[in-house]
C-alpha cells in the first residue's frame, strides 16, 4: 500500500473519524493503584527474583 493511498484513506473520512477519536480519552489522573498494592507487589518481585534465578540454574 503506497503513501498516497494511505493519505487518501485518511483524508476521506477524517472529520467523522475525528469525532470518534475525540471520544477516546485517557483515564482521569486519579485512576492509580493503591499504595498498599504498590508496596506489596514490589516486595513480591524482590522476593521471587532469587528463587526464579535459582530454579533457572537448577533447570
Amino acid at each position, binding site marked *: 500500500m503506497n*503513501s498516497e493511498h*494511505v493519505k487518501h*484513506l*485518511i483524508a476521506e473520512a477524517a472529520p467523522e*473519524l475525528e469525532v470518534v477519536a475525540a471520544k477516546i480519552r485517557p483515564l482521569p489522573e486519579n*485512576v492509580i493503584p493503591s499504595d498498599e498494592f504498590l508496596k506489596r507487589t514490589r516486595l513480591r518481585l524482590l522476593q521471587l*527474583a532469587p528463587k526464579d534465578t535459582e530454579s533457572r540454574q537448577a533447570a
Partner: protein
Amino acid sequence: MTTVSPRPNPDTNGHLREVKRDREEERLLVERAIGRDQSAFAELYDQHVVRIYRHIFYLVGDSREAEDLTAQTFLKAWEAIDRYKERGAPFVAWLLRIAHNLTVSYLRSKREHSALDEGFVDSKRAGNPEESLEQANDERSVRDAVLRLRDEQRQVIMLRFVEEMDYREVAAVIGKSVPAVRVIQHRALGNLRKIMQE
C-alpha cells in the same frame, strides 16, 4: 497529513536531549535486569507500574482486577526479560504488550463465563460528583466499543489515544510500519464509529 492526533508533540532540543538521556538510563537498567539484577528490575517497576495499571484498568474497569493483572504483568516480564529485544520503542512498550495480551486473554476467559462486567465505573470515578451520568455512560460505551475491535485495531487505538503514543512508537510496539499503523487506526476509528452507531 491527518489531524486525528491526541496532542501535539513537544520537539524542542532540550526535550529531545532529555528523552535521549532517559532512554540511555533505561537501557542500562534493562541490561542490569536482564542480568538478573533485582534492584534494577524494581526500578523499572517503580517507573512503569502506574502506566501499566492504568492501561489494564481501561480494559477491565475494576481496580482489584487491574491490580492482579498488573502484578501478573511484572511477574511475567521478569520471567521473560532475557528474551527482551530493544526495537526502537521504550521498554514500557514491551510491558504494555505483555499487559495487553494478558488482559485480553483474561477478558476472553471471563466472557466465556459471564456477560461483560457491568461495573466499569470504578468507585474512584463514580465518587466524583462533577462527573455527569451522561459522561460516565459515554465513556463506558466508548470503552465497550474499543473492546469489540479486533486485537490489532484495539491495540493501536489504545496506544494512540489512551497511551498517547505517536505513530512511530506504536509502529515499534506492534512491529508494523508507520503507514500501516495509520491505516489500522483509520479502519479502527471507522469500525468504532459503526459500533457506536449500532
